[in-house]
């Protein structure tokens, strides 16, 4: 303790004075000065560690932590334990090291528990009279709370929090942490009360405000939450470089999203990712990506993911894998929406296999697994439909594709089962069913692709259960589409058609584009031979999302001007429906000469060539041409 006090005196008295003095006559930066100011008095390399006292080694370790050299500090602390295995302070500091710097919570808890055991053996049972004992005891309890919290042992953490307050200890972190624990235990009202106390007492105000905002949002008070987040943002901004305004900004974005105020949600997250701490975590980028996906803005999502990955390189996290699973999930979805099912599968499989550290954020591993599984199921469907409509050069190639499709069919069926079971058993009876549920990673517009495999009667029941508390009119559109999709899957076309027709009118332009595509796909399946409706709907879907028709196994009607019969026959086997009997928006034109095949895809209304492909190998040209179109 003496060494620690000595160190703090150095930090707060000696250093500012010496640094100030040196700043006047040198151009060295503050880090160099800090380094120079401390290295000499605290790390004495002339004496070997084995000849130093445990107090000296502890002081050096403390300095090394501050100098951002945690591994050096860890080595010093281990040397302390070599000298004195019962030195509880070294145990406690190692516990903190594994808790804060490594994220190895189990090992952290081991050290902390040992520190507690040794402390109680050496100092007797609490309460203590001496300040040093009280400080050390409070510190150990604090570490114990944090370790249990990180190991999701909330009851255990609350037990220690009670003990902490029973001995009359108080620290700025206390209200925020207690509120968090109570929230995790589902005691929202108590948590709100605790967070309010935190705000009033001004203890770690930013954190307490942030916590209070989350709690109010959970307690169905979004306006109250937004107000609190505004204060939290202001508080964090007032801290300058030390502040972390991206966190409350991200949270307020989530509230806007839940309120279906997509405009504000987008601008809030954009603001968050532009801040210095905006890419310390992937959440603002991820949330923005999911929102833009609902608006089918694929290029925007790619760009923000690129920016995030460029930015994150500046902040080496605990390990470089932290955000990768989530980024892979988003990249997989982008590829799927761009018609690249192979690439999509590669990303999505990585997202499910990759290591992901979720820490204290609400999103957990099961959120990621279920969201990735649904996207993988969609990617398999797209891949199967791609293989079905591809042009083949030989009979054997076609046979091999049938074999592949069969294997995809089995895999897909299996994954549907797995996704259903994950959502039901590991996610509390599909808690993510509530549209835009906080922490969910699901793409809500296409969630119906999985839900359709459940009986419509259960979907109805679930919707009924949710809309008792969910009064947002925008979310009703999503529920209706899920129900229609389930009806359609179970053969009740008329019911599906009725629901879709009424829902389509209520969709918000731009914000619900992805949902609109889903609704139109249902409409496409229920046209019952009405060619005009089919053509109109298919063209509408193509305008919104060009890969969707092929991904879902529907054809796009086009006019054509093709002389070569083999090209005509081959294209008729794809998901282009060549039809000159009606006037359509798009046209395929063949302009081949001298053995070179030239194909163009033209928008007739603007008379503009959208895509063009040329070459000598017909199959190759046709497949590339199709890839361009879809």
């Amino acid at each position, binding site marked *: 303790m003496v060494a620690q006090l000595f160190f703090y005196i150095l930090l707060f008295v000696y250093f500012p004075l010496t640094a100030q003095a040196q700043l006047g006559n040198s151009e060295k930066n503050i880090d160099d000065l800090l380094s120079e100011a401390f290295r000499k008095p605290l790390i004495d390399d002339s004496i070997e560690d084995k000849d130093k006292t445990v107090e000296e080694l502890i002081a050096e370790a403390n300095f*090394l932590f501050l100098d951002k050299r945690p591994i050096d500090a860890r080595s010093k602390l281990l040397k302390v334990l070599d000298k004195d*295995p019962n030195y509880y302070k070294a145990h406690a500091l190692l516990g903190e090291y594994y808790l804060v710097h490594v994220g190895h919570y189990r090992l952290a808890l081991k050290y902390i528990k040992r520190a507690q055991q040794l402390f109680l053996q050496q100092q007797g049972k609490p309460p203590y009279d001496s300040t040093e004992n009280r400080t050390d005891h409070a510190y150990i309890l604090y570490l114990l709370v944090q370790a249990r919290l990180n190991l999701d042992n909330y009851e255990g953490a609350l037990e220690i929090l009670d003990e902490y307050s029973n001995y009359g200890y108080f620290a700025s972190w206390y209200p925020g942490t207690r509120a968090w624990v109570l929230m995790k235990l589902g005691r929202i009202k108590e948590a709100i009360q605790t967070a309010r106390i935190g705000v009033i007492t001004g203890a770690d105000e930013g954190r307490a405000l942030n916590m209070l905002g989350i709690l109010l949002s959970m307690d169905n008070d979004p306006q109250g939450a937004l107000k609190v987040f505004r204060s939290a943002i202001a508080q964090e901004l007032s801290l300058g470089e030390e502040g972390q305004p991206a966190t409350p900004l991200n949270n307020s974005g989530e509230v806007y999203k839940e309120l279906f105020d997509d405009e504000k949600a987008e601008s809030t997250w954009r603001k968050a990712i532009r801040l210095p701490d905006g890419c310390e975590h992937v959440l603002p980028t991820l949330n923005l990506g999911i929102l833009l996906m609902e608006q089918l803005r694929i290029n925007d999502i790619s760009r923000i993911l690129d920016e995030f990955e460029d930015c994150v390189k500046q902040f080496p996290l605990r390990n470089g894998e932290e955000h990768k699973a989530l980024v892979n999930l988003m990249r997989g979805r982008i590829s799927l929406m761009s018609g690249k099912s192979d690439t999509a599968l590669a990303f999505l499989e990585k997202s499910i296999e990759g290591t992901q550290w979720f820490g204290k954020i609400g999103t957990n591993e099961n959120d990621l697994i279920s969201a990735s599984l649904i996207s993988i199921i969609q990617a398999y469907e797209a891949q199967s439909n791609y293989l079905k409509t591809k042009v083949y050069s030989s009979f054997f190639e076609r046979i091999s594709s049938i074999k592949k499709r069969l294997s995809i069919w089995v895999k897909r069926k299996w994954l549907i089962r797995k996704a259903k079971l994950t959502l039901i058993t590991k996610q509390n009876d599909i808690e993510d069913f509530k549209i835009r549920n906080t922490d969910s990673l699901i793409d809500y517009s296409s969630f119906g692709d999985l839900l359709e495999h459940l009986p419509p009667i259960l979907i109805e029941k679930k919707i009924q259960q949710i809309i008792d508390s969910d009064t947002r009119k925008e979310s009703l559109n999503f529920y209706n589409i899920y129900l229609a999709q389930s009806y359609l899957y179970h053969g009740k076309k008329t019911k599906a058609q009725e629901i879709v027709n009424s829902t389509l009118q209520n969709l918000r332009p731009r914000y619900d584009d992805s949902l609109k595509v889903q609704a139109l796909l249902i409409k496409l399946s229920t046209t019952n031979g009405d060619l005009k409706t089919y053509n109109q709907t298919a063209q509408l879907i193509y305008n919104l999302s060009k890969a969707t028709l092929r991904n879902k196994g529907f054809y796009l009607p086009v006019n054509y001007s093709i002389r070569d019969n083999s090209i005509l026959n081959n294209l008729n086997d794809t998901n282009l429906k060549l039809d000159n009997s009606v006037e359509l928006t798009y046209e395929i034109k063949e302009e081949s000469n001298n053995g070179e095949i030239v194909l163009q895809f033209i928008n007739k209304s603007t008379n503009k060539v959208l895509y063009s492909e040329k070459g000598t190998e017909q199959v190759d040209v046709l497949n590339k041409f199709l890839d361009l179109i879809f």
Partner: protein
Amino acid sequence: MLIDKSIDLSTSITALTLSSIIGVFSAYKLKNYSSSKVLFGILLIIFVIEILLRWLEVLPLASSIFFLSTLSSHIRLIELIYFISIFSTHLSLKSATAYTIETLILMLFGISILSGHRNFHFELPKFTQTISWTLGSSQLTTFILIGTLISLLTLIYLFFSPSENSQEGEIILGKRNILRYGVGSLLLLSLFIGSSGLIHSYFKDSSEASGKLTNGVGQAGKEGSSPLGFHSALGGSNEPAGLVRLDGDYKNNPFAPMLYLRESALSELQGNEIVLALKGFDNDVSRTSPSENFSRVQDNSLAERETLTQSVYLIAPHKSIFAIDYPIKIDPLKNPNTSKFIAAYRVVSAIPEYKLSEFENIETGDPSWTGIEWSHYLAVHSNKKYTELALNITKNEPTDIDKIRAIIKYLSKNAIYTLTPNHEVAQGDDPVEPFLFGDMRGYCVHFAHATVYMLRALGIPARIGTGYLTDLNQAKDGHILLRMSDRHAWAESYIRGYGWVPFDVQPEQVESHADTNVDMSMLEDLMGLLEPGDEILPEKILEGEKNVEDSPSLKLPELKYFIIPFLLLLVVFILTKLFLRYSWILSDTPSIRLRRAYISVASQLIERGHIRNTGETRCEFKKRLIAGKLNFNFTLAEKLTKNKFCKNTDRNKLSLKEISQALHNDLSPLIKTSIWKRIVFFANPTPFLEFFSRKKW
């Protein structure tokens, strides 16, 4: 359950296994029905169950809306496994062909599960990695073990298959069959063991295979040889090679986040490749084995170097140590866990802390080198094309450093990284030429050679460093898990005042590459092995704490969980066999004693492969035995038949003594066999199985 944990099918594997076992038993019960009837029955039952499940799914019974839906999913899978098991067993009982097809399907299933290992990926499929880790064996050994086990299981399965001459479903363990199958099995077993040994030694000892397994970068051997392979680097395996624990921070790592760990340096140009030079060159490399001590005085002429201690725990065998840059002290360490680590050592290195951008206008080469050394590091390849290309790339570059950078930039921009360049190179030809002046497809070995050839052509001393290249972003608490896929070769040049500095190509175009993710749970497991001992951190300190179980790696159950059921089964087996043989003694009622005496003889006949067929009367059985090679007169069979089926008045009134005498007479030819044969017959489990499944003896 162990299997439940290792394979995630969402539904309990135990339940599925039980359903398949019950399916097999059900098939035996249904063996007298025709296959079409069984199939029809199965389809009918599936149809009924499906209707019931659909009805069940929507029942408002549970508080959770989807609970019953989940339950139906599980039931459907269990049902599917049950019926597949019934039908396949039924078919195999009906026809030997079906049995063969079933065996083939099972083998194909096994092969497809294991097929991830193709292209030298012995770490795939992932569950083999977990098993290997749990058993503490190399992944190659584990893979061979699994393959052999599957083959043996198939063999055992075939051993029990109905032969052409046997009756439906009859298992014949007769003396001849035991000999026939036994010898065959032994031969096949020897073949498995022999071929496994050959495969193992091929991959462990052959330099060609070793190159493939180690990402093209093998281990340095003798002077004058090269550990590098040019053909392919498909062995980009995730197999763990070692654990490095940094005992301090490396804040000013010039290559951050990457870390180079040098194992060896190749500098002698020998024809068309660069090989390990004689001692006297590359003295910065220690060339010591992990069990040797080493120490040298730090070269203080080299600028901006600090010391850093690293502890290295080897998982795969290594001939020489590896360390960050210039090792100055090496001491072997006590192996903390002999089941996981092969050896351990501690190195103190003089680590570089310079900035690569500092190298402006600095000359290359060491002025203290002798003329021989200069010529050694500047030996130019005989092919003039390297010089021409190097001059062309660097024509506008004034300094050595600029030239080095220009060459690295050229290769990074134009070369394509691939694990399979597949260049056709005849023995003795230059393997780098088809890369640099051909398709530019290659991997680190090609890049390093091309760089060194071009640098030397420009008069810049250069050599190849080999060892590991790892990403510190994937380190935890200063612990780095090195995999075989991290083995790497890179070009180095001597920068005056700084020493040998890696200049590595980072290709912009990548055709294929090895898996890059480190298995974090394995890393944590290994870190756990290095935790302080019990005196500092008692093992039981976490007792009573929640959510602190070890990482979810596969844990084998303790041996007692196998031994206790095995012993119980053995006791039940012996008691049953004794009961079958001697229970007649316990009865004082003649009719019961007669029946039990009959069973005693029948069970011993079964042990010798003579079984009463389904539908065969005891008398017919007796006749068959007399007519057969054994020429056995089963008098008790006749006596029992008469006693059972004749009217009460006509029944043989046999006394207890007469029954015992008859039994003695019947058994006498059987007892004449040698004692060891009788022990083998006693071990035959068929009567035991018959006791639990057969109603009529």
